[in-house]
């Protein structure tokens, strides 16, 4: 979106705008999507600034205090070790959002490239590439992660990569099936007859037309990745206390749900808010990137 202004100055107004510029214009008219975008940006900013603005340290304990309900000192209450929940949720958001976005981005890039290549060229290459996907699908995910952890040690970045390395499989399949139906369309053949290189065709004519399902799947992947991280952490393979993540907080919150409901409710709200925002933004993006929806 950055170069949009420079492009429009070169082109006179009636030359039209690119898909992305149009998408931005349409997105900015979609209130729900803008709301989602605003929430996400706020969450990301808060996460980035957490060490500066968090009211307490994330490992600051007050064992005498124990779990207390929300109060003026501790807006969202404290956990059983007397740690401030607001602080822990803010620190947890750093991990959860990072896992969500980085792992999904990894899945997105590998999945689209792999799926588009296999679908576009077809034949033997497609067969080999998709068998690799099948084999990876068949590997038990837990064993794969545990192996990685054992070999490389527990490392947060590695965790992101490992999750991404599993999630891209579905993405590759979705993109491949889309591309296979696009490949035989006449406009792709027209691009061939213009002498465009294969890569140009994939980039300009194929991938933009697969965006709809990809965006929808992405908005579904981010939350599932966040929950996956919680699961791994729960098993002791991911984040360990005193560090926190939303998934981890929710897991501990569930254990004490009846006595101290705020330990479950507040991290739950944080996660749900993110999911809502993502869905609104995802729907908005899908509509905005489809020229068939009207501009007004």
């Amino acid at each position, binding site marked *: 979106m950055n170069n949009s202004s420079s492009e429009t100055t070169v082109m006179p107004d*009636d030359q039209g705008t690119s898909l992305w510029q149009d998408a931005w214009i349409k997105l900015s008219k979609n209130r729900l999507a803008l709301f989602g975008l605003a929430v996400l940006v706020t969450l990301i900013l808060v996460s980035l600034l957490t060490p500066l603005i968090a009211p307490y340290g994330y490992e600051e304990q007050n064992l005498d205090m124990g779990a207390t309900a929300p109060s003026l000192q501790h807006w969202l209450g404290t956990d059983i070790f007397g740690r401030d929940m607001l602080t822990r949720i803010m620190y947890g958001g750093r991990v959860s959002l990072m896992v969500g976005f980085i792992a999904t981005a990894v899945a997105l890039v590998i999945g689209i490239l792999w799926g588009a290549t296999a679908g576009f060229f077809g034949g033997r290459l497609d067969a080999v590439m998709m068998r690799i996907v099948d084999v990876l699908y068949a590997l038990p995910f837990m064993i794969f992660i545990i192996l990685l952890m054992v070999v490389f040690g527990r490392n947060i970045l590695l965790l992101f990569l490992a999750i991404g390395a599993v999630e891209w499989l579905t993405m590759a399949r979705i993109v491949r099936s889309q591309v296979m139906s696009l490949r035989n*369309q006449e*406009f792709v053949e027209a691009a061939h007859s213009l002498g465009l290189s294969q890569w140009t065709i994939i980039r300009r004519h194929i991938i933009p037309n697969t965006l709809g399902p990809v965006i929808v799947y992405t908005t579904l992947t981010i939350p599932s990745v966040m929950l996956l991280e919680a699961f791994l952490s729960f098993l002791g393979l991911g984040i360990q206390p005193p560090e926190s993540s939303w998934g981890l907080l929710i897991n501990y919150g569930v254990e004490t749900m009846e006595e101290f409901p705020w330990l479950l409710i507040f991290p739950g709200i944080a996660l749900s808010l993110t999911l809502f925002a993502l869905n609104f933004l995802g729907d908005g993006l899908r509509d905005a990137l489809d020229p068939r929806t009207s501009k007004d």
Partner: protein
Amino acid sequence: MAILEVSGLKVYFHTRNGVVKAVDDVSFSVDSGETLAIVGESGSGKSVTCYSLLDLLPKPPAKIEGGTALFNGHDLLTCSAAEMRQHRCNDIAVIFQDPMTSLNPFLTIGEQLIEPLIYHPNKDQVTSRAEAKEKAVALLDEVGIIDPEVRFDCYPHEFSGGMRQRVMIAMALITEPKLLICDEPTTALDVTIQAQILELIKKLQETRNVAVIFISHDLGVVAGIADKVMVMCDGTIRETGDTDNIFYKTKDEYTKKLLAAIPEGAKTLPNRCNTDEALVEVTNLKTYFRNQAAAAKDDESQFVKAVNDVSLTISRGEILGLVGESGSGKSTLGRSILQLAPTTAGSVSFNKQVLTGMTPKKLVPWRQKMQMIFQDPYASLNPRMTVFETLSEPLLYHGLATQKTIAAQVKTLMDDVGLAQAQLRKYPHEFSGGQRQRIAIGRAIATKPEFIIADEPVSALDVTIQAQILDLILNLVERHNLTMMFISHDLSVVRYISDRVIIMNRGVIIEQGDTEALWAHPKQQYTQDLLSAIPLADPVSERNRIASR
């Protein structure tokens, strides 16, 4: 008394962008044993009119706003769902356009044929399976299916297009309806098959004395079989009358325009080819596809021979028409010449340069000189690119324009193909079929090619639009000094546009020659059959032809 009497029918579509009056105050009537043809271009409301009678429209957005449709005295528009089922089961049948999609691929045709008989809503009218089968087999025989006993248990994919349409007709007739609605029943079929199906409908109608409503966009098709013709445009009736009156003595401007748009007669422009210089030379070209279905690995049945040993030359400046029915390999030949389909053997040379066997990289400069116009303007444009992007892509890619000059160059292109410059930033879906085809043509001529292959460029278009696009193509050929290969199944169009014609069937060339000479004296039987099957917009000669068979 008329069996169906429609008066003041109004069907509106309530869409987000306002109310569309799809059918506005339409009245007509049909008698038993009579054929009413409803003719109009796409969007004229001809199909909506008939579907509203059978309650087949999606509601909402469609809403019947007024009028009556009396079928034997009962109003079809206000009857209950149960009564409507009765009518559909007993009285009114429909034959749809596309025989490929209107049969269920998972059921045998026999099962589909007897369905209305053994699952009849009236318990006392239910027939036994054995009886129903007997009836179905007799009917299959009547519509010209050979070996009906055996074919009864076959699945739709085991039939050809024409045979499927025969099955559809049998399916429509099995309940012995009093009214038969045919919605473009021959549009998806080859011309020789079309002639057979039209004859069949005519014959069955006479023996069974049913009323027929025949919907078509093609005046030529209805000329021979209609008793009355109703011309529709934009949801209203322009004119209703006897077939002869409509064709020979029409006073309506729109009908005149429709009749004038039918391509008839020879090419009016002279042949621009004045040299013997061959631009494109094809020698013993073979394009085979591996047959997925073939079980045996012997050499013969393993391949589908789409193009089998074809040699031809196209001289600089001429328009060569390539005619063939579906499956004749004409499109594959076009794609093989442009190196878009992998060839098996033989060679294609352009301007004395052999193209077959070149790497994709080496082909790029040649691609600039050879372009293609595709059949379906809805599929041949990237839906996510604006007109500007679509037209500028070939120019920028081949380095024929710079960022500074591109705006002016694209505008020139738009002028060339007759599009308003204000539409540059619109996306394909915002255009009509004819305008889209203009964009596609613009893209093809953008690189200033010497040779263009047009693959059925007008067969998805309405007849008046078709005439405009054909004139545009002729005009561009003239102005840009193009050589063209024009592929079509429509013989009238090919005669109208080409200097020389090649007739193709089953992957081989049957006959070739100068257009008028070939039309006057076709040598091969196949060519003669093909030429005699062309429907003409002339009721008297059409009726004579059907009677003489």
